[in-house]
């Protein structure tokens, strides 16, 4: 059961070259903080939309067998990628090393204390999307794997446009669009 707080390394298209694959680690601090305050929704969403599996919690097969299944994606399903958050971030004036991936997700996971598995599938409106923030790092090694960034946030934000739906005001809020 405690495995639900142990997320694996994830693969993603490289920010600079979409055809290449890089490895990211999900922030220990983000997981720890959410676990400590009992905030489960972001954790469930990390499992479903970055790891591409339902979270390993008791009775989760209820959702897998149900009529509404969560979209299981990875960052390889991203529809866009941006760099820079235009605000101070660590030692950077404009958060230049922050990468933002955009996922268009139709069904996500929410928390439901009345469910035997504590989770529920939720159909989302199409005018909002998920953004995933990654802080690029120097190469970190875990075993023989090079990790090049830490996933620090997953957030659902208001979008604009369709197919793909991009974050509202993306031209003003991010430094540049990479792809």
């Amino acid at each position: 059961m405690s495995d639900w707080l142990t997320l694996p390394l994830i693969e993603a298209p490289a920010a600079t070259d979409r055809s290449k694959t890089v490895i990211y680690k999900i922030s220990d601090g983000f997981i720890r903080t959410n676990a400590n305050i009992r905030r489960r929704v972001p954790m469930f969403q990390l499992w479903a939309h970055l790891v591409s599996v339902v979270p390993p919690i008791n009775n989760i097969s209820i959702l897998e067998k149900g009529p509404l299944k969560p979209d299981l994606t990875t960052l390889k399903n991203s529809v866009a990628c941006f760099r820079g958050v235009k605000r101070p971030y660590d030692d950077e004036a404009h958060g230049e090393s922050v990468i933002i991936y955009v996922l268009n997700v139709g069904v996500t996971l929410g928390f439901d204390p009345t469910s035997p598995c504590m989770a529920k599938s939720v159909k989302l409106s199409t005018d909002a999307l998920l953004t995933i923030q990654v802080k690029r790092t120097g190469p970190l090694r875990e075993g023989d794997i090079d990790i090049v960034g830490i996933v620090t946030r997953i957030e659902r934000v208001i979008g604009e446009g369709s197919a793909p739906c991009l974050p509202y005001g993306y031209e003003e809020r991010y430094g540049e669009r990479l792809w």
Partner: protein
Amino acid sequence: MGTRSATANVFGDPMPESTAVNQLYERYDPVAAYYLESDCVEYVKSDSIAIYDRIDEFLTLIFDETRSNLIGFKLKGFKNIFEQRLKHISQLRNIQFIDLVSAIETIFTLVGDKVMAAHDERREKAYKAARELASNDNVTLSSDFLKAA
């Protein structure tokens, strides 16, 4: 650990299974939390699917799925604000908690001239809404947040 089940968790420490179970099943009590790697403080009233609405480089409002109910806010670049503006006040008052109403007011002093000069009603309303929520819910953050993060 005896026969008790434990798993090495993502924090590098052994996590008793009972703790992870609690973290799945226990009730969510709204509390402000500091996220070190993204350097922000976030407060949400419920553990629900939320929509984040960026107001500016310092403030994001958090709404419920209907988008009509404000359920939280995120204060960005918080470490710098704390170090430059709030830390000494906390020390002066000899208090262990940062009142986030004061934090929001302090942040607004940084952007207020621009907001007022531009008659930017959206931003002004957003700061007022965040301040009101923080006040109504008496939202605070431990002044040890950097150690705890």
